[in-house]
């Protein structure tokens, strides 16, 4: 065990897997010499060289398109998209190609890769350095989507993702890149994809969230507890395919649920979770499921802490739901 922040834990996972599996290559803008704009790939260029840690031209479509070719060849590419807001020039390659390769070839051309990219608000990045586009990938059949909230999970999930036979979008909550610290197991350590984590037990309301909002959720849960409301907090970890059993089991217990995410509410993952709960635990619901999300506006600069579903917006939702 070593105390690490998220950046260090991800760096550790990358280094470990690159040593273990020489098919792993990293490519992206500024990932090489400078080690990434968030320094997540720091040191890897020096250690593994320019064949395996590759600074590319400024084109996300080129990065993902060539990474697909590498995966078809048999490498294990781990492309980085500098901010998930800049993934859209590569959206066609991801949704039309990467997601469909195994299916359209009847299994002849699987295309495993991990697309790493910082996600979410909290660094005063405005419209284009703050968004959370997970729903735009979950809706597309064929992609797995992961978002860790702790350094240990970041390492464990990333190692699982890099060994997974399917393409994985790995969203890294940049707000907590350095703020989230914790003990991280040394060496080989995996956290299985598809398993949520019940971070806090509670009887009255289930709160489902992931990524940086976990800490806001926990803060809100503490405040709710002070008002006598016990909140069970679930950290989804894998956003798709999500751990429906853990969610449903909790809601069957509490009868009440609040989903919290940074992305805009409309057609976000929150809506999917609410619908699944309706389908699987309808008769257990004692209050309308609530969503506390980013507003349905572009992500703002100055008012970002008003836009984000921070604790001050979560607490009222918890209390209302508990007291419905």
């Amino acid at each position: 065990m070593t105390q690490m922040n998220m950046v260090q834990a991800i760096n550790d996972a990358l280094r470990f897997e690159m040593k273990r599996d020489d098919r792993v290559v990293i490519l992206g803008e500024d990932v090489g010499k400078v080690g990434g704009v968030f320094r997540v790939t720091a040191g890897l260029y020096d250690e593994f060289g320019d064949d395996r840690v590759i600074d590319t031209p400024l084109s996300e479509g080129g990065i993902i398109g060539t990474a697909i070719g590498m995966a078809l060849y048999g490498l294990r590419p781990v492309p980085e998209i500098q901010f998930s807001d800049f993934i859209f020039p590569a959206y066609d390659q991801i949704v039309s190609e990467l997601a469909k390769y195994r299916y359209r070839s009847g299994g002849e051309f699987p295309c495993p890769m991990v697309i790493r990219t910082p996600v979410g608000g909290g660094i005063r990045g405005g419209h284009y350095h703050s968004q959370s586009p997970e729903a735009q990938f979950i809706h597309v059949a064929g992609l797995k989507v992961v978002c860790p909230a702790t350094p240990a999970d970041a390492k464990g999930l990333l190692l699982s993702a890099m060994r997974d036979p399917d393409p994985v979008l790995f969203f890294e909550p940049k707000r907590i890149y350095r703020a989230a610290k914790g003990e991280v197991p040394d060496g080989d350590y995996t956290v299985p994809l598809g398993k949520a984590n019940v971070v806090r037990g509670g009887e009255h309301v289930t709160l489902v969230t992931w990524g940086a909002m976990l800490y806001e959720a926990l803060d809100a849960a503490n405040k709710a507890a002070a008002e006598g409301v016990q909140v069970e907090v679930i950290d989804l970890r894998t956003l798709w395919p999500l751990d429906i059993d853990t969610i449903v089991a909790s809601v069957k217990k509490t009868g009440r649920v609040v989903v919290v995410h940074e992305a805009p509410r409309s057609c976000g993952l929150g809506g999917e979770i609410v619908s699944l709960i309706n389908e699987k635990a309808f008769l257990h619901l004692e209050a309308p499921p609530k969503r506390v999300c980013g507003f349905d506006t572009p992500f703002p600069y100055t008012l970002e802490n008003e836009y984000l579903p921070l604790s001050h917006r979560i607490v009222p939702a918890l209390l209302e739901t508990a007291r419905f």
Partner: protein
Amino acid sequence: MTTDTLESVTHGTSRRLPDDALAPDVVRILSPDGTLLADEPGVSDEEAVALYRAMARTRIIDERAVLLQRQGRIGFHIGSLGEEATVLGSAYALRGTDWLFPCYREFGAALLRGMPLQRYFDNLYGNASDPAKGRQMPDHWCYRDARVGSVSSPIGTQITQAVGFAWAARIRRDPLVALVYFGEGATSSNEFHNGLNFAGVFKTPNVFLCRNNGWAISVPTERQTASESFAAKGVAYGVPAVRCDGNDVLAVLQVTRQAVERAARGEGPTLVEALTYRMSGHSTSDDPTRYRPEEQLSPWGKLDPMHRLRRYLEARVGWSDGKQQALEEQVAGELKTVIETAEKSSAPALETLFDDVFATLPWHLQEQRAELLSGPRAKGH
């Protein structure tokens, strides 16, 4: 401000007329009447016959597929009528270890590399025997065993992928070359730009085969770009480029072979523009009479790639009507068998809908599969 109409801002139409295919910088070995323009053909007579056979087979299959579509027996076909020299000549230049990334008109190239004809027809029929389980449209096949990639509809995506593939091989010191096909329309796509740019920077072992067939559905080449040629675009990426007569199979073969050798020597990618002409509609869904000036067809007809090679073989090895007939009968026989077999195969089973989305079936697909299999259709099945 000038007062010309926008109509006049696009440039001349020369780039897609036969004149252009005969321009001096365009590599040519066989003249339109089949006489050798070079000292040496660059291929043995046996090879030339093999190429001719492959081209003829391709054309016969193509014509049959159109017929099957017209009869309502298959849903769609997109072929290579008139472009056989470009497709077959280039594929022939590959070594066994090399890879081929197709656009959608290169079934002939895939068959040349060993894709079974039955497999091709199982795709056309989308039946239960299709290894891709009838999931893709006709003419969207793949065949890993012969190092042939997967056809996809979105224009150009295979270009960037072929670059990544070749780049990976280079990183692994694996001496293969990846040839990728695309139409001249695809040069306008994001993918052409990204693929060529990365290939130039990382000196990947690629051959970019641009089939300039004059049209992107109804859009003529002069609406695609204002550059002097499609080959000229190589300059933007530091990628050497060459134009060849795409209806001269010997020229296509020679130019592609040189590009393959160059790539194999580690000297990087080459862009090949093959000047040819789409003699059919875009696909069986298209009616070219709405937009194609009829006067374009007959000069191109005179440049027909089959005709040219046949004349050459007649003079060279005594190719005869008898041999031609035997070849046609042989292909007809093949076709009879594969079509019968394809038509005997049923539709893919319902449950195949859910396989291969992921390596293993996650819970939500298990549930959806169970729903479908317990529904009214499954019972009728």
